């Protein structure tokens, strides 16, 4: 994303104030940060009879990490505990080595874009972000606010109060307020909601830049395409539990012991379907027009054997297409497995 030109004495995107915040002594753009910037240890959160989060443990380093899960999975509750907005019922949450609920310095190093749409509706965007900068003690809050708004492609001189903004503009105002003090830990709850595809792509670029600079960027989403685009480490949360973690490829490998579905378009689909079952390559098949939908426990074997089988049947293969090789399938499988 083309970032606005940072003022003199500061570094590039996401790092307008990097040199100030990181301290120039280490000579790097990123601060001297601990490996586990966010550490969640055996954390549970119980609201009355509802267990929102159950015995979750993970640590998050710098870079972009996505918290993936359906609505009500406990993502926002985990984020709230990280920010100190609520205490865990059991376990501990440490951000930069401290409890944000108790340590005001750590609170100053967190940028949060909450899920709720609420803003100070009587303020315009510049005022809103300016207040965020001032309350974080940013040395030049007006410049910082303008920079942050331009970063999210909002006009700092727009005189309208934010109550007149569209959902996407409100979302970007929240993001600007979360970014304005160049936090070490950025916690963004469903930050891409309401953004159009172009804005979404650009925002993902910004987040990746921040992650590459050594910031810890935590993003929650229930939209799997967003997480796939982020190309990040993924923590899958379902029913308050951490059900899987890793990058997309690692999560995909978790799937090897479950049936995969492959669509094979070919001549003589009925013959091909019978041959797939007979050879043990597929455990179940159905024919839809010229396509064979095959369920297999070993997708690699099917890939190796489909061509010789078709040759033997004198059938011409047109396409071989995995039907569940996307994050949606991984996610659904992991959630249903619980």
């Amino acid at each position: 994303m083309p970032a606005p030109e940072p003022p003199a004495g500061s570094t590039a995107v996401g790092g307008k104030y990097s040199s100030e915040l990181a301290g120039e002594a280490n000579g790097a753009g990123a601060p001297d940060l601990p490996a586990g910037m966010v550490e969640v240890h055996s954390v549970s959160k119980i609201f009355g009879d509802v267990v929102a989060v159950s015995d979750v443990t993970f640590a998050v380093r710098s870079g972009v990490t996505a918290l993936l899960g359906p609505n009500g999975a406990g993502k926002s509750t985990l984020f709230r505990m990280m920010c100190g907005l609520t205490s865990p019922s059991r376990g501990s949450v440490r951000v930069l080595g401290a409890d944000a609920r108790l340590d005001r310095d750590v609170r100053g190093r967190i940028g949060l874009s909450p899920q709720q749409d609420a803003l100070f509706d009587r303020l315009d965007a510049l005022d809103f972000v300016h207040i965020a900068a001032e309350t974080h003690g940013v040395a030049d809050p007006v410049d910082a606010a303008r920079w942050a708004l331009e970063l999210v492609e909002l006009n700092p001189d727009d005189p309208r109060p934010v109550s007149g903004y569209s959902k996407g503009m409100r979302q970007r105002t929240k993001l600007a307020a979360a970014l304005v003090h160049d936090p070490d830990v950025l916690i963004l709850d469903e930050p891409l909601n309401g953004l159009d595809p172009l804005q979404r792509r650009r925002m993902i670029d910004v987040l990746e830049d921040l992650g590459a600079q050594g910031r810890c960027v935590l993003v929650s989403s229930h939209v799997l395409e967003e997480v796939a685009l982020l190309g990040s480490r993924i923590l899958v949360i379902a029913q308050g539990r951490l059900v899987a973690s890793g990058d997309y490829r690692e999560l995909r490998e978790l799937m090897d012991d479950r049936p995969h579905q492959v669509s094979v378009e070919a001549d003589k689909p009925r013959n091909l379907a019978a041959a797939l079952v007979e050879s043990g390559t597929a455990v179940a098949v159905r024919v839809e027009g010229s396509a064979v939908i095959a369920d297999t426990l070993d997708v690699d074997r099917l890939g190796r054997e489909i061509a010789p089988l078709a040759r033997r049947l004198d059938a011409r293969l047109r396409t071989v297409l995995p039907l569940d090789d996307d994050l949606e399938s991984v996610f659904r499988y992991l959630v249903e497995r619980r």
Partner: protein
Amino acid sequence: MSTPAAAAASTAVRRRVGAVRATVLCYRVLIRQIVSMGRIAALGALGTTMIVVGWVVGSSSSRNGSSTAGMIFDGASYADGFGLIVIVPIVSLVFAAASLGDARDDGTLVYLWLRPMGRAPLAAAAALASVTVSLPLCVVPTVLGGWLATDFVAGSGRVALGSLAAAALGTIAYSCLFVLVGLLFRKAVLWGIAYILLWEGLAVGLGDFAERLSLRGYARTLLARIADVDLGFATYRLVTAVIVLACVSAVSLALATVRLRHIDVD
């Protein structure tokens, strides 16, 4: 793993937000959030009603040939019965409960809570914002209404002065109390109205002990002592009333600060 000290060290170049600065920043936000045309118009109309009725009371008492002492008593009673019992608590409740209560309910409190600032400035800013808006809406009608009800007889200045002191200190004490109520309860205005009607309105009639636990009695004492009028249920010394109202304000703000430290923020 980093220690809190190490964490703090890397942010040392960021300016620390001191208590006064934090109070000013929060005040700027909160005062803009609590003021709305609807609230000002409705509560302004209530105050205007008090002033108009006070003028009518004063005029009719004068025409009926009431004595000076009677006019003074009527003015003080009117300032108490309308100003201190209705306007001061209601106006304070509307703005003070909204200051942090609305922010908590609508989810904007997070934008002031998750900051490297103490909690006391946030509570103080809420009370200050509330008092700033409430004070003119409480003091002007209470003073003018009470004064007009005396029809400016000799000694009416004492009623105005007593009304001023009682309305001002009452507004401050109620505002601090209702900031706390706004943090303790959702739908704080309903709880506040219940408190005003059931406790301040009825329970004080239950006897001396109950009266001691009501703010109204202390505010009324200020008016009665300064105006030199016997209003009943205003049996404290002037200094006692001032100290109690100041203590209620301070304790309410202290409890609001504690509440902010432990509150679950959406």
